[in-house]
């Protein structure tokens, strides 16, 4: 075997090994860092398999479930599959201050983990507004936002 051929083979083998190792590490890392999108019903259906993994839980804030602790630092509320009375729901505890739009009945996505205690600990709270930007529908009045801000009560900064 010529030296150049041998060198080339060594180089190819080295690249293959490095590539394989990279692929192995990458896939392993992806597996560890997956975030699952589940609704409360789906998550509860997973049973113990839902414990510990990072989850994005999407649902509706159940009416009458929002509670602040006295210092106004810890928020808890229930996220339900839907607005109906029988919908599956999960108790969520969040240390993050919710955004202006947060209120009862609004769609939210909370990111965090679920464990044996049955409480979903959230470190990220996103209000799932209708982000789709669209022209107004017939009969829809502009400046509807006025109502959304003042009509319904915004719990976030109600009283410190």
């Amino acid at each position: 075997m010529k030296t150049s051929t041998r060198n080339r083979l060594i180089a190819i083998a080295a690249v293959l090994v490095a590539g394989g190792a990279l692929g192995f590490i990458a896939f392993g890392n992806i597996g560890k860092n997956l975030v699952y999108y589940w609704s409360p019903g789906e998550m509860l259906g997973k049973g113990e398999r839902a414990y510990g993994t990072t989850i994005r839980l999407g649902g509706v804030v159940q009416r009458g479930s929002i509670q602040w602790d006295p210092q106004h630092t810890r928020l808890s509320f229930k996220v339900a599959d839907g607005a109906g009375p029988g919908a599956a729901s999960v108790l969520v505890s969040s240390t993050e201050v919710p955004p202006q739009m947060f209120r009862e009945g609004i769609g939210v996505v909370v990111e965090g983990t679920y464990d044996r205690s049955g409480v979903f600990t959230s470190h990220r709270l996103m209000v799932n507004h209708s982000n789709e930007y669209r022209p107004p529908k017939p009969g829809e009045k502009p400046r509807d936002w006025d109502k959304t801000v003042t009509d319904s009560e915004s719990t976030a900064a109600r009283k410190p």
Partner: protein
Amino acid sequence: MNSTLGYSAVLGALACAIVGAVIGIGTGVARSDAGLPWVRRAVVGFFGFMLLANLIMVYALLTHDFSVHYVAHVGSRATPTVYTVVSLWSALEGSILFWGVILGTYLLAFALSQKDEHTRYMPLALGTMLAVGVFFAFLIAGPANPFGKVSPVPADGPGPNALLQNHILMVVHPPMLYLGYVGMTVPFGIAAAALLRGELGEAWTTTLRRWTLIPWTFLSVGIVLGSWWAYAVLGWGGYWAWDPVENASFLPWLTATAFIHSTMVHERRKVLKLWTLSLVLGTFILTILGTFMTRSGVFNSVHSFTQSDIGPTFLAFIGVLLVVCISLLATRGQLLVPEGAIRSPLSRETAILVNNLLFVGITFTVLLGTLFPLVTEAVRGVRVSVGEPYFNKMAVPGGVAVLFLMGVGPMLPWGTGSPRVVRQQLLIPTALAAATIVLCLAFGLRGAMPILTFGLAAFVVAITLRELLLPAKVRILEHKERPWTALVRSALKSRRRFGGYVVHLGIVMIFVAIAASSSFVTHTSGTVGIGKSLQIGGYNLKLVGFQNGAEPHRRWKAANLEMTTQGGRTELLAPRMNFFERSTDPIGTPAVRSTPAGDLYVTLLAFSDDERSATFNLWIFPMVGWIWGSIPILVFGALIAMWPGRRARAALASPLSVQDPTAMGKVNRGAA
């Protein structure tokens, strides 16, 4: 009227592109340059029609002609004029139309810059680029037609997406990215022509290099501006989130950067021809993939404003591209024979080779993480996303290794390095790196990765400055020149080298700023009543009141915070919440107090309806402004590197003036 005219212009562009592509590739493959004049005319026609279509659209937007589908979709009488023009690229159809005119401009500029040169390659190169033009013109004429007629004509439209009219950066960031993205079509055409001809000459490589550097510069600026926009507008307190769309712009940047480096090895050693061309082809495919990810709505992202049906067309195009590129490489690749070899592991070429493998490795892992959710959803029907930790875990070590190579590479000579000399030259930079690390530890900084980054940054800066200044020092000593004259002259003598190192300094700046701002960030949030204060990192912020304002297209509410620094200086910060007329949710404008040492970043999260209290998110990001501060340095360096020098023009004119690369091995440390 506007609809008909605009659509006709698009069809005209499509016709020009088809004719030019067929003639160019047809005659080019037959090894004739008889078709070249016609291909050139097709390029001019393509550009003209695309420009016309865009002007008609801008006119329709400015005159609020709501009978045009796109205007009815994004226009509004209440939008300020500047954002009305900007709305050309604020939604899918318009942005692809804008894409078309940029492509036309690039093609025209390329055709004009290569007047009588390279007639062997030109029909193929222009033909390939026009084939890309066919795809985009087809897209504009068919699935993403902005010129559709609306009936009955609405009285007013919704205006562009509120997020996009909230900051002036939106005016510059997308065009920069498009200039970067679309510009990669030119190197793609050049590389495809080289493969089709089965040869890659010296002068054609120079052309390829210059025409990659131009879009690379735009892409770099576009990415940095994009992170700045995310920081200044989105208000989530960050600038990079490994969002699929951010990745989409980052991936071609990685491969293009790898190309810029590997082409130097190709130039000096006449090896890595196929590899270098593969990087160019890969870069182009990644830009198309990126456009697909941005525009088809397959990802849930800040950027995917519209769901659309251009997805299948794009997927088909990506498929065609992959088949074409792989078969080109497979069938024509063996014609590009390496004429040299890499001899020593202790050499610049080895450092660049490792750099290339690193860049491709990072590209692979980022691509994997980006596409993984798509694949799992398609195959298993499970909705997942790949968390930021994955990207950070994979990219941070890669980035640190790249930083290390940025120091080692320029220090090693081409050819074969002598271990003794290398050791000697390592001495001072290593000492500086060690001193930096000790200083960081002494000041109480903790964390392996950031401190390693700071140390390596000192190492790279020391080496880069030495490489930049050494030729000037030689001139001062030998020619008795004044320092400034010596520096300018030495820079002019080797523009590419000088410019490249200036860019390196800018990149080091970004590295340091990212490490500092992500590792040593301080964050707090809280709700306060009027007259009460929040504290963060030595700042005291007292809520003093609210402020309301109205503009034609939006209303806003700001919370006035009286900020006091540790030194007792007082300033007013007013983070705002904007309510756009037809957007259902408010959009924040963070208040940022920037200093070179770091930014105080305040967002208004919520307020009580009686204006008695408000909730804020507060961050301190050390050194974050240095990321955008690097833009002038990057641009300056890139401009030096790509400015055509007299020598480069002479080399283009006579291909025989190429020097023997081995003879240059000894002198290139100083001058080349």
